[in-house]
Each structure stands twice: as structure tokens, then as C-alpha cells.
């Protein structure tokens, strides 16, 4: 499962590197590199956020480590995206970057999402997880906030919002809604339906309950 996560998350980056090396990027490579790294970061972040609900609904605990792996890759692609913006696009020129950000205010929303991912990445080692204890869980709930900011950034950045972007916004909306306390009952119900063959009362207690 872990290997699958690594491979899956590396594929878009390798494709991008291949296209860049073989001249497969459009006549506006800056735009393509910026947009593709941004999209990859966004998709991986959404998938990472989806891991929790999937585990809660299906009880498949083996997929749980993917949340961390995909989250870390999301941060990686977000870093490339930011570098493409300040470096490839603006040539690391402060004055031009300030002007650029003032024109594209959505860049600030994206930057906020990036900073959250930075904090999450910095606190993702086993040692940190252990040391921070219960606070760690609270900090890592910020991933949902990053997801919300990333979605806003994405929808705002595109010229015209297409069905695809609306669908992504819908997915993130559902993932956020599942965090509401009211959603907890839904998980219990769904899981009961999935495991109806074994009535929970009569069976032995499962590891999670």
C-alpha cells in the first residue's frame, strides 16, 4: 500500500519531467509547469484528506498510512508550484513578485495553504508525533483548512470555472462535511451496513471499537 502511494504520487512528477526533457511542454512552458505542479499538489491533498473517511467507512486500516504519504507529496508538489511561480515566472525578482501577488490575490490564499502544509510536514516525523501527543491531532486537523484554501485558490486562479473544478470543490465540501460531529453517526450507520453479515452485538469486539 505504501509503495503504491509512493509510486502513484511520483508518476505525475515523472511525466512532467519527461515532457520538460523532451520538449513536450507547450509554447508557454512556464504556465504549464506552474499549472501542472499546482494541480498535482491539489489532487494529492484531496486524496490525502479522503483517506480518513475511507478508513472510517470501510474499516480498511491498511490504507491509513496513505494520508501521511500523500500529504507529504502534496507538500512536495506545492513547493515546486511555488518555486515555478517565483522563479520560472518572475525570475526571483522581489519587485515583480510583489506586483504579481497584488494582481493575483489568490496567490495569497495559495501561500496560506502552502504554509499550513509546511507546518504539517515539519510535524510529521514519528518523533514529533509522539512528543506532541494530543496537540498533534489538533494541528493536523489544519489539513482540512489547507484543503479549503487550496480549493479557493484553484477556483479563483482559473479564468472560467469548469465542471471539473466544481466537481473537485464538491469532493472537498463532502470531505469537510464529514468532519462535522453530525457526520459521526453516518459513519457508524454506513459501517454497520457494510458489515451486516456479522451482527456487531454477537460478534467479538473489533479492534477499533
Amino acid at each position, binding site marked *: 500500500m505504501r509503495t503504491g502511494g509512493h509510486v502513484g504520487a511520483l508518476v505525475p512528477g515523472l511525466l512532467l519531467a519527461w515532457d520538460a526533457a523532451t520538449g513536450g511542454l507547450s*509554447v*508557454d*512552458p512556464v504556465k504549464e509547469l506552474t499549472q501542472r505542479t499546482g494541480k498535482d499538489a491539489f489532487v494529492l491533498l484531496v486524496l490525502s484528506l479522503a483517506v480518513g473517511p475511507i478508513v472510517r467507512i470501510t474499516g480498511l486500516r491498511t490504507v491509513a498510512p496513505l494520508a501521511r504519504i500523500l500529504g507529504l507529496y502534496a507538500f512536495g508538489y506545492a513547493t515546486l508550484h511555488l518555486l515555478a511561480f517565483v*522563479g520560472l515566472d518572475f*525570475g526571483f*525578482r522581489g519587485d515583480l513578485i510583489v506586483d504579481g501577488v497584488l*494582481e493575483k490575490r489568490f496567490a495569497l490564499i495559495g501561500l496560506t495553504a502552502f504554509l499550513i502544509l509546511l507546518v504539517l510536514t515539519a510535524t510529521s516525523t514519528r518523533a514529533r508525533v509522539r512528543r506532541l501527543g494530543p496537540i498533534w491531532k489538533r494541528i493536523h486537523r489544519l489539513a482540512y483548512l489547507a484543503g479549503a484554501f487550496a480549493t479557493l485558490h484553484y477556483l479563483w486562479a482559473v479564468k472560467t470555472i469548469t465542471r471539473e473544478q466544481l466537481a473537485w470543490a464538491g469532493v472537498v465540501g463532502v470531505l469537510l462535511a464529514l468532519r462535522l460531529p453530525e457526520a459521526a453517526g453516518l459513519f457508524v450507520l454506513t459501517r454497520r451496513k457494510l458489515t451486516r453479515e456479522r451482527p456487531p452485538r454477537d460478534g467479538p469486539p473489533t479492534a477499533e471499537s
Partner: protein
Amino acid sequence: MNRIDPSEITPEHIYLSRRSFMVGVAATAGAAVLAGCEVGGDTGTSGEGASTTVGTPGSTGAATDELGQGLTSYEAVTTYNNFYEFTVDKEEVAEKAADFVSTPWTLEVGGLVDSPRTFTIADLLALLPEEERIYRMRCVEGWSMVIPWLGIPLGALLEMVGPTSEARFVRFQSIDDPEHLPGQKKYSYDWPYIEGLRLDEATHDLTLLSTGLYGKRLLPQNGAPIRLVVPWKYGFKSIKSIVKIELVREMPVSFWMASSPREYGFYANVNPTVDHPRWSQKAERRIGEFGRRDTLMFNGYDEVASLYEGMDLRKDF
């Protein structure tokens, strides 16, 4: 039908090497003339090689502009276009414009002139020799290219029709044909596309009526068969696929002035110190490069500065 199959288009590197070959041929021919009469018969043979290329009598043979900046690739010039008559997506214009037929074509030149005339493209090219001009093109959106154009100076054409003493501006009109221009059906702008120049701008030596680029006839996405090129102004002033040129008394209202007067003025000179209301004009991305270049006043064509002496270019943007 005089459409050019993409396979016939000279790739950029061959174009460049052919030009350096031609420069070599010219130098050899020149040397032969200097050397005397004994090789006189050979110079004619050498000349034939040069004449098979679409006429580039004014060709400088250079692969850069006068500032030493390299040409933008033929691919980029022909696949990255702003031409709303087809689509607003720059990278889709070439495809959407592929079936556009620009022959036969007539260009009407009239208004306040002594002898109004209607030209075919062949008429024009027979009357006025095509020149090659390597110009920077700066789009108001913040990107730029360096393009080797072929064309005739607009001033020479205007001289032929003779503007009257009342003529002060030149008004240009693009083709109006919603049946063949999907953008004219799709987008609710005030079609057709209109542009204008002051008479002294129009007759400036830099101002070109272009009929080709990279040694070939213009492709539809670049404004076939004839378009304006005013290199010191933002790209949108260089109106494409022109059907009518009129000499007028009053300042024409351009397409973009009509559409958003707060954002676009009549002059639209490239000016890094006057920002567009929605974005900075300090720097530009040269297509094919990473990072940004500083935008130059009048796009680096300082020789036009005298046209605007005493004007407030913040007000007359």
C-alpha cells in the same frame, strides 16, 4: 486557394540557415563584381537561388533584432495568438483558424484621399516591394516575441492614395464575417475589430502593413492576408486581416476603447511606467524564456518619442 500546407512551411532553423546562406551568396556575388568582369556570368546563377525564396529584398540576414535579441520560434509565433474572432484561447487559435480562406481578398483604401483605390494583395505586392523587418511585439497581457515580418511600409501605400489636407487619423477595419469567424458569433463584442493611428504614426517608417513572416505568407492565425504591425504599441493595435483603411478627420474609436474605455486608450504605446488598471506593465515574459525581461519605453523604439513630445502619456495611454 493559396493556402499553405503546414509541411511546406520552412522550419525556423532552415529559414535561418538559408538566410545565412543568402548572405554568403550576396557576399560572394559582391566580391565577384568587385573582382571584375571575368566571372560576370556566374553572378546571375547565384542570384537565382536567392530569388526562389519569398521575396526578402530588404533582408538583413540577421537572426536577431537590432538589440541582439533572438527570434521567437516559428512554432510559437504561429501557435500562440490573440485573435478573438476565432477564440479567446491563445493556444487554440491556430486550429480554429486553419480553414479560414483569405484568398481572394481586397483591401479598400479611401476616405479623405485624392484617389481612393481597392487593391488585391497581388496588386499591392506588385506596386510596393516587400521588406523584411525584425520587430519585437509586446502584448498588453505581459508577454512578447521577436518576429521577422515581411511587409510594405504603410506610409508608402498612403502616399499612393494621397491623403487630403483634412485627413488627421487613419481608421482600420478587420473582416466582418460571423459565418467563418466563430468568435464573432460567440463573444458579444462590438464587431468588427477597429483600430486607429494618428496620420504621423501611420506614416512613420516603422509602421508596416505585413503580408508575411519568416519568409512565408501570413497564416490565418497571424492575420492573413494583410495586417498592421506597429512595434512600439501594444500588440492589439496591430489589427489583423484588414479589409478597409480610411483616412478620417476625427480620432477613431477602437474596438478595445469601445469595449473598456477605462482600460484601453487610443495611443496604447508600450510604457513600463503606466500600468494597465489590472496588471503591471513593468516587465514581460518573452515567449520561450523563463523569468521576465524589463519592458522598454516604446518597446525599445526610442525614435518614435518625438511623435509624443509635450503629451502626458499617463493621460493619453
